[in-house]
């Protein structure tokens, strides 16, 4: 099990790495998607026992996935509009707000 947990953690960190280091809007969203999947997996692994995965854990995993999906839909919409407005998808150039 420890190996599974560790791999889930690594998957989460890979997603986080994408969020922090990638500057393309779509790449950032991909990073978020990886994180969402990893959290979903954490629930599955946490709820896992010989007989299957617990109902509550599953429900919460579902919450994570659907919640993530909802947010990402909005992110995609926003990123399209951002690209239209700024003419770039580079998040490090989208910084009118500072100070």
């Amino acid at each position, binding site marked *: 099990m420890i190996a599974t947990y560790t791999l889930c*953690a690594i998957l989460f960190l890979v997603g986080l790495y994408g969020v922090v280091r990638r500057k393309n809007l*779509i790449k950032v969203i991909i990073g978020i998607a990886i994180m969402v999947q990893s959290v979903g997996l954490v629930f599955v692994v946490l709820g896992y026992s010989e007989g299957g995965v617990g109902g509550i854990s599953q*429900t919460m995993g579902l919450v994570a996935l*659907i*919640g993530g999906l909802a947010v990402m839909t*909005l992110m995609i919409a926003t990123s*399209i509009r951002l690209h239209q407005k700024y003419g770039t998808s580079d998040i*490090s150039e989208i910084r009118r707000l500072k100070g």
Partner: protein
Amino acid sequence: MVAVNVLLGLMILAGLVALEMRNLRVAIYSLGAGGVLFIVISFLMGALEVGIGGVILVAILIPLLIWAVGRTTGEDTTARMRLEVNEIFVLISIVAFIVVLLVVIIPLFPELPSVPEAVEGPMGLSILREVLVLLAALAGVWAVLRLVGRRGDK
């Protein structure tokens, strides 16, 4: 468990590919592959609901992303790394975080309880809540995709 671990390893690989690819379409397909692996893992472990959730996720997210790439840019042209204070700070931060998180959590895993919990539980109303979340997101998308936000603009 071994199979799950292998699949997880593949997911990580797919994730890395998705993040590193310059071609965004390939990156998204790679993410989709990761999603499929996710679904497989869920079903393998017996998590039917999460698996269905995964299917929904992949089925909606991937086309959306492809569509978004079509509307924006197909190529990730952002520079990989510049020698700037900011970039170095960010790199140090993420590396430090990864190290600290792993150092902190690996000793925790044995502490995690392995008491089995009740396997079945009615999905019931939890679906209703998911619907509400999706509703909010739809309303949001509906608002954000307006072409003109303020009266008098353009």
